[in-house]
């Protein structure tokens, strides 16, 4: 990267560390989670039978922190957030787990109560803003639809609030633009409108599903900065669902890496990138084209498994470069190779330390690898 545009300053990293000090807060247990997902499992009915899209996902979202959920298509990252919001399609069903929002388990509520609860406290930003906004209503109308319906705002108040919201997301000339329709906005501006819509009810948690994937890098930077500013100002919890490890590194505090419906690694973002504890995370990070290498890219062979034909044992084992016999037969438990870190790999401590796991035929000295 251009030296003019970036500093790899250690100081910045440190200041971030002290600003949030994730491990300290967590160990003291002061921080209560705004949103806590525990052991969530979602199944889909398909023509091939019942398919498990999410299997035992747990995470917590805290005030003022950003959790990134990373995964490829079909990893279950989007389905899990739909489950949190009660927006799953009729063919899907939550089979286990809980979603606790301010102490209430949303999954015990009826669908209607669930949606009502979420509308107030959890909001969602979608990838495709053009599809998520209704083309026949003005932006101002859509911004305040929920406010008018739920809070009974008058037309005049709603108009005023819509202008405030557009100002908040830095849409220039907000007063005039509330009267315009979604197609009159550019891609980046539409995404801002989406964010404004999500903020209308003053949510505690914002879930953003690939909010910048469709945008150019320069506009992506604007939108990500906006999200970060709003989050810092309101001490909101932010869940960022993405496939872009660069975006995660740029804005997240914690990261959950999903593969084949499971969380394979969970950690604060700095150690996760420095010493990944799961071979999938490690391989993903290595496969990013960057300045360093001009030779062949290290790649992950094969492709993600279909949920209908999940491999035995560890779902990643057919593509893993550190696969051992145990991986083919046993589903790895959640290992905790270090404070605040989780990795679903039989050899998490080895991977984290950068060692190759003990070969299968090596004599067993000094106890089990677990």
């Amino acid at each position, binding site marked *: 990267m251009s030296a003019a545009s970036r500093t790899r300053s250690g100081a910045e990293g440190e200041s971030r560390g002290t600003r949030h000090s994730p491990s300290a807060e967590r160990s003291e247990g002061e921080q209560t989670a705004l949103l806590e997902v525990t052991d969530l499992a979602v199944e889909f009915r398909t023509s091939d039978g019942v398919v498990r899209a999410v299997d035992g996902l747990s995470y917590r979202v805290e005030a003022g922190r950003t959790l990134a959920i990373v995964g490829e298509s079909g990893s279950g990252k989007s389905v899990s957030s739909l489950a949190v919001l009660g927006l799953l399609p009729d063919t899907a069903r939550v089979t286990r787990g809980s979603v606790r929002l301010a102490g209430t388990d949303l999954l015990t509520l009826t669908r209607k109560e669930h949606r009502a609860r979420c509308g107030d406290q959890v909001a969602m930003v979608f990838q495709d803003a053009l599809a998520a906004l209704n083309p026949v209503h003005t932006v101002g109308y859509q911004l305040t639809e929920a406010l008018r319906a739920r809070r009974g705002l008058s037309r005049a108040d709603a108009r005023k609030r819509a202008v405030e919201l557009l100002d908040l997301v830095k849409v220039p000339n907000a007063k005039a633009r509330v009267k315009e329709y979604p197609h009159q906005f*550019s891609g980046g501006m539409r995404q801002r409108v989406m964010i404004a819509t999500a903020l209308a009810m003053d949510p505690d948690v914002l879930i953003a599903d690939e909010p910048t994937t469709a945008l150019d890098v320069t*506009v992506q930077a604007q939108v990500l900065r906006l999200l970060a500013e709003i989050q810092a100002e309101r001490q909101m919890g932010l869940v960022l669902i993405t496939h872009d490890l660069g*975006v995660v590194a740029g804005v997240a505090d914690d990261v959950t890496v999903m593969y084949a419906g499971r969380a394979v690694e969970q950690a604060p973002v700095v150690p996760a990138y420095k010493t990944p504890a799961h071979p999938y995370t490690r391989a993903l990070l290595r496969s990013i*084209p960057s300045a360093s290498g001009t030779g062949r890219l290290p790649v992950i062979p094969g*492709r993600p498994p279909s949920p209908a034909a999940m491999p035995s044992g560890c779902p990643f084992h057919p593509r893993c470069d550190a696969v051992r016999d145990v991986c083919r037969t046993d589903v790895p438990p959640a290992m905790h190779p270090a404070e605040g870190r989780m990795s679903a790999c039989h050899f998490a401590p080895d991977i984290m330390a950068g060692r190759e796991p003990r070969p299968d035929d090596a004599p067993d000295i000094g106890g089990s690898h677990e």
Partner: protein
Amino acid sequence: MSEPVLEVRDLVKHYPVRNGLLRRSTGAVKAVDGVSLTLERGRTLGLVGESGSGKSTLARVLVGIEAPTSGQVLVDGEDVVGLSRAGRKQLRRDVQMVFQDPYTSLNPRMSVSEIVGEPFAIHGIDPAGGRRAAVGELLELVGLDPDHASRYPHQFSGGQRQRVGIARALALRPKILVCDEPVSALDVSVQGQVINLLEDLQAELGLSYLFVAHDLGVVRHIAHDVAVMYLGRIVEQGPEAAVYDGAQHPYTQALLSAVPVPDPSIRLVTPTPSVEVGGGAIVLEGDPPSPVDPPSGCPFHTRCWLAPALPDARTAPSADRPETGLRLIPTVCETEQPALVVRDGSAGGSHVAACHFARELVAPRVRG
């Protein structure tokens, strides 16, 4: 330096904007507005820019899907613009295209062997050993099992479909492959496989690539030279290392700084936003202007983060330009279009940028 296989000279592609009942032309979308490029044999030229920069239009003109408004396209020294029908057909054998979306670029109602064999059918070619064998060889070349030739596209994953698209493009043994965002629709773990395949094919077949992408990381990995487009023009061009490590145009710098890097110690979003050089990401304000009515002078001046900080910047709003008067920037940026020339000799003669103040831009970085 090897000899050029593709040369583009002053290429212009304008789309008329028609309005009213009589469909009178009321202006033009200046999608490509005077682009010159050189692609050398066996090398890769990366073309980057935001959406709407004209990079995809340029790609479509080069493969002959769109006719240019003016300018020259030379393939092996021969101008292919304004060729006869037969000549155009020959051009199509020399320049082929790989598309972005592997889900829409293959006809769902044709089997893979029909898709890969279609170039032979169109050109009436009967390769030695028969079309079936040729299709099998092509599939093997791109790493697919020839036994799967009778399957349909939906039976393949995204990465495999992209391989089918590459096999189709290679059927006519082209010299140049125009790749329009060939990996951006693929999963991260599959992107690398396709990039490696493209690099292998280049080494094996001596192909030249024009690699159009918005992912600057991918371009950096695969390209030997890089051209940066903004509003239909090239604003900076040069060897990959020179452009990435010594960007001279403020737009290139902003673009590079906005790319998220997978290193958590480099925050994309700094706690206090700033546009200072060297202070985290340079976040450009707003969206690119409309290519129907591009700004006067330097097309980037309306979003340029550098211009207001220059010593030449005006101190009072310009009276005769009320629309841009709010930005206190050097007058020359508003009035004179900068030429794409060598701005800083230290980077060698092939690194060019279209900015009046490229030198000022280079200087602080060299000091720092």
